[in-house]
Structures are given as C-alpha cells and as structure tokens.
C-alpha cells in the first residue's frame, strides 16, 4: 500500500472520483427538471464530435477533441429543440431521433476513416480506460511534493479537477436563481430570472462535464453518475442543499468502491485479472440506488398511503 498504490491506483481513483462529482452535481438539477436523459443523449453524441475533431486535426489530442465533443453536444441540443418545435413530437422521441442518428454517424465515420494508428474506437468511447491513467514517475507518497514527478501527472487528472472545480463554482454562484427556476419556473420568470438562459446553461454545464469525463472514463460512468447518485440522494431528503451533499457522497462512494472492487474483487474471488472499473463503478452506483429505493427515508411520493 505504498509506492505501488500511488503509481498505479491513486490517479485513476482520483479521476474517477472527480468525474463522478462533476457529473453528479448538474445531475441533481437534471433529475428535478425531468431531463435525466439529457446526460444519456450528450454522452452518445460526443462520439461523432470526437471523430470529426480527429478527422480535421489528424491527431488524438486533447483540446480539439474536447471542442469537437462540446460542439456536437450543442448541435444535438439545438437539433432536439428544433425537431421538437417543428415536428411537434414529444421531447423523448425527438431526443431519441437525434442522439441515435448522431451516434450512428459517428460509428460510420470511425469505421470509414483510418484510425488503425491511433487509440480511438467505439469500445474505448463506451467503456473508457480508467485503469490506464497511471502516474508513471511516482515513486511513493513523497512524489506528491516532488515537482518533477508532479509535472508528469496524467493530463486527465488536471482537466477533470478543473472541470469539477468550475462546475462547483458555477453552482455556488448561481445557486439561488438556479434553484428557483428549477422548482417554479413561472415564479422565477416573474421576478426577472432569465430561466431560459439557466436552462440552456445547465445543459451546457452537463455537456462540459460529460465531455471531460467521457474522454477519461467512457460514457457508461457519465450516464450512471448523472442519474444514480442524484436519484439516490433525492430519496434521502426533501432539501436541495442536503440532496446535493448526499449526491456527492454517493458519487464518491460509488467511484471508490467500484474502483477497488474492480481491481481487487476478482482476486478475492480467486480470479486473476481485474474487471472493467468503469462498468463496476456504474454497477455499484446502481446497487446503492437499489438499496435506497428499499429503505431510504423519503423514497415514497408525498401522500402515498401507508403500507404501500
């Protein structure tokens, strides 16, 4: 539990935790606004964005891909809104039309282009590769104060940390108007809060979190963390402030437990190889949600008769 842990497990674990928090925070509001599946849609459309960015720049580098994925997310949101208005079909179906088509286009582009020389494939986009984000130059806990080793931290860690920080900051700054426009949009409008701006901003925020996390950990964690920790937290309390804190706790818990179980669980069971950490984190978040559905204090709708 020393040098090896710092080198191989510390950074993936931290990245997993940060990704989980960055997704769970906006997830709280998405759940309350009945937009839980926005995260699902965004994480699907990130693929075509990343492929297009790769085709334009010809390299797998961070910033073009992030921009490409964010651009694709904006395109998808605009398309969904446009189809909803023009065709007058329900939002769920409009979303289904857009994200499946964009995802299909992404897969097709990927198959058509020559990506044999680079690390870019559909499986990677879905599962991510959390385990590979190791800190090579770390030699132990004292590397944490060694500037040479610190300079070699995986770039995903820095990126994920800044995204999580920015999202928390935005949430803290816009807390009141965001809360108001989530719970009572009409009232918020009347007292002069630009609810449409907040609504769009929230989706953009979710998109940024999804895209940053997507690159590091794949889309399964992204979708699971958008929904499961906030949904679990929703069953614990009636107060939004407390709910957000609970959701962060559940996100961290899922990330840590999932990562540890994926890495060491098979060995405890006599296996030799670790299983997918991303998949395991999603599974654990689901188990936590399942337990909450059974015993959490506020799991029932207000007004449900006793004994149900």
């Amino acid at each position, binding site marked *: 539990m020393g040098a090896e842990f710092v080198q191989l497990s510390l950074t993936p674990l931290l990245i997993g935790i940060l990704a989980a928090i960055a997704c769970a925070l906006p997830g709280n509001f998405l759940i309350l606004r009945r937009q*839980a599946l926005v995260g699902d849609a965004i994480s699907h459309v990130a693929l075509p964005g990343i492929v297009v960015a790769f085709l334009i720049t010809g390299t797998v580098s961070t910033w073009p891909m992030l921009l490409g994925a964010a651009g694709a997310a904006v395109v998808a949101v605009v398309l969904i809104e446009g189809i909803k208005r023009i*065709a007058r079909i*329900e939002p769920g179906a409009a979303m289904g039309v857009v994200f499946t088509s964009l995802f299909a286009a992404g897969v*097709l582009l990927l198959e058509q282009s020559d990506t044999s020389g680079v690390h870019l494939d559909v499986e990677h986009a879905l*599962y991510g590769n959390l385990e590979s984000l190791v800190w090579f130059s770390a030699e132990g806990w004292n590397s944490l104060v060694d500037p040479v080793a610190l300079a070699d931290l995986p770039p995903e860690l820095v990126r994920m940390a800044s995204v999580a920080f920015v999202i928390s900051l935005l949430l803290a700054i816009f807390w009141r108007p965001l809360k108001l426009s989530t719970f009572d949009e009409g009232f918020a409008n009347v007292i002069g809060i630009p609810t449409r701006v907040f609504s769009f901003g929230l989706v953009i925020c979710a998109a940024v979190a999804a895209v940053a996390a997507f690159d590091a950990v794949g889309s399964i964690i992204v979708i699971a963390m958008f929904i499961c920790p906030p949904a679990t937290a929703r069953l614990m309390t009636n107060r939004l402030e407390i709910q957000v804190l609970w959701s962060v706790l559940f996100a961290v818990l899922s990330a840590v437990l999932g990562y540890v179980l994926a890495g060491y669980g098979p060995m405890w069971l006599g296996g030799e190889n670790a299983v997918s950490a991303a998949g395991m984190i*999603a599974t654990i978040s689901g188990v936590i949600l399942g337990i909450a*559905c059974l015993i959490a204090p506020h799991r029932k*709708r207000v007004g449900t008769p006793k004994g149900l």
Partner: protein
Amino acid sequence: MVSAFLDALLLQAGYNAALVAVGAALLGIAAGSGGTFLFLRKRSLLSDALAHSTLPGVGIAFILMVALGGEGRNLLGLLLGSTVSATIGLLAVDWITNRTRLAEDAAIGAVLSVFFGFGVVLLTVIQTMSSGYQAGLEGFLLGSTAGMLFGDAIVITIGGALIVTVVLLLRRPMTLVAFDPEFAAASGVNVQRVDLAMMGLVMAVTIVGLKLVGLVLIVALLIIPPATARLWSNRTENVVLGAGLIGGVSGYMGAALSASAPNLPTGPIIVLMSFALFALSLLFAPARGVFAALLSRRRFRNRLHRRQGLLALAHGGSIQDRMTRAVLRREGFIRGDATLTEAGKAAAARVQHDERRWAMARQLHQLDGFSARYDSLRPIDSVLTRDQIAEIDRRMGDPAFFDRSGDGS
C-alpha cells in the same frame, strides 16, 4: 460499388446477404409498426432501457453455456439470456416508477446505465476467461452481419416474420389503447394485457435486432420510423402502416448498402437511412413540414396585410407599408399610385362592413367569451350563423346593402 449495391438490392449478392437483407426489412417493418404504439404512448425511450439491459443477459448466458461445456456463441442461447435480463430491466423501471418518487426518465436512465455497466463488467470477465472466446460478443453492441452464420440469419428472418404477424393480429386493440386507454378500457379491452403485449413486441424487436443492429442503436429503429410517419398523418392506422413501410425500406436498403462495400456497418447504415427519410419528411411533410409551415405563415401574412390595408383605405387613410402595398397590388385592389380600383373599393367596403358587424357583435356578446375570437382577421360569417348576423344587422339599423355572399375578407 453501384453495381454491388444493385446486386445486393436485387438479392444477388449471395445467399447470406439476401437473407440478411430480407431479415432486416422484416425487422424494420416490425420495429416501425410496433414502435408506433410505444411512440403514441410517449414512452419511446423505455426501449432504450430495454435494449441496454440485454447486455448482462448476453454475458451471463455466454458464461453459463461455456461453464456447461457448450459453445458460448450459440445465438439462441444468448438471445434467451438477453430476454431474461431485459425483462428484469423492464420490471426494475416499472418498480422504481411506481414504488418510489423518482420519475420515469430517471428510472430509465438508472436502469440503462447500471445494467449496461454490469454487462461491461461481465464482458471483461469473459475476455479473461479464455482468449479464444472473446470475439463475437462485441458484435452485440453495434451489430455485425459480417461473418454471420447461416443459422443466425434464419433466426433473424423467422423472428422478424413472427413479430410482423403479431403486429397484424393485435393492431386493433393496440391502436385503441395507444390512442385512448380510458376509452379502450370502457369498451372492454384489457388495457394491462395489451400494454404487456406491446412491451413484449418491443422486447422481441430488440432481441431479434441485437445481432443485426446492436443494442446501442436498436432503439433508433423503434423511434425514428414512427416519428417520421407521424409527420405525414394524423390517423393512427396510417402512422402504423407508414412507420412499418419506412422501417422496412430503411432496413432493406441499409442492409443492401452495407453488404455492397467494406467498412459499412449494418446497424449505423440502417439508422442513418431512416434518419434520411425523417429529415426529408421534416422538410416536405404536408402539415408539419418546414416548407408547409413557411407557406402557411406566408398565407397568414398576406391575409393580414390585405385586411389591414383595405381597412385603412376604407377609412380614407393611406398606406405607407411596402409589404401591404405589394399584397394589395398583386390582388388588383390598388393601382400604382395607391388608389383603390373598382374591385378594391368593393373589397374595402366589405371589410369595413365586416368590422362594423364585429363591433356590434362584441357589444351584444360581451360576456360569453365570444369577443375573444375577434382577431380583426376572421370574417364574422365564419363564426356566427346567418340568423345571428341578421340580428346584428337589425340592431345596427342598417339594412345590409353590401354584398351578403359571405366573402368578408
């Protein structure tokens, strides 16, 4: 490439390719028409949860079959496993929605991501079990027809045909329930059982389509064709038929196109084919299309300019607005110097008279919400009966010496 595509279209590209194309067409018809009922009940995305929750079943079935000493890739066995886990996923969505305060979208998202995540865990377990077995299961994510066995193609074709038959048999009660569940219940249809049948159909489409389209994209086949058909018609039976047709065409064309060149994965091609049909419909559909909307906006604008322009002229005013002038000019109501023609005078008088009747009518009907229908655009005789108008004319003390034919615009 073109000739290869034609070959595939005409089922000349080999026995397997032909079977796959027919299977894809049948699956498309089944998904389109079956998906319509889900679409009309506004539960389209439920199919996404269903599709993603098949993955753990596939993994467990594979592990079980290998553990029992069999061949892990037996398609029927894998499909059986996926049916079981998809059923569990569906029940989980239902249970969360009914028993907790979480909304259906949260339940769908949670089940989708958790089941899929667990499936991925199982896939990594399988990869480490023994290296020889790992190929094949990834095909369930995005579908793969390359290297599809003859038996697999048969399964898909028969499955598709069976689903289409069931849709044909159940279309009446399902239409009724999708359109108006309360009325259906009142007329003696067992709504719960029909709902169950509908979910069964969707599940069957998902399972049969797993190998062909893959679990990430199968949901598109259930959503896009109904959404497309809905643009063209307001009648349920037409939407069902249209969605089946659109799904069938996209399935057939997509499979043929995919067979005609390398690196064209079947699932994405079929999805993009149906999206192309959707985009075309969005532009050209008669009532809900973009062009139709532009046209009706233009018509509305013309009516507005004509009426307001004529009213202004009837009151002796002049028209400064260029658009109004252009509209009136085109109708032959004014001359180049913006003075009324004979036809224009008559039309202006009719419009003015209509306005006066409206004013009187709004006085008479102040309290019954009638006045809210006044938009200075609608001729009064399209709202009131002839007797009511005669009454208004009597009150106005002004025998209607204007044209009574009704063209008050």
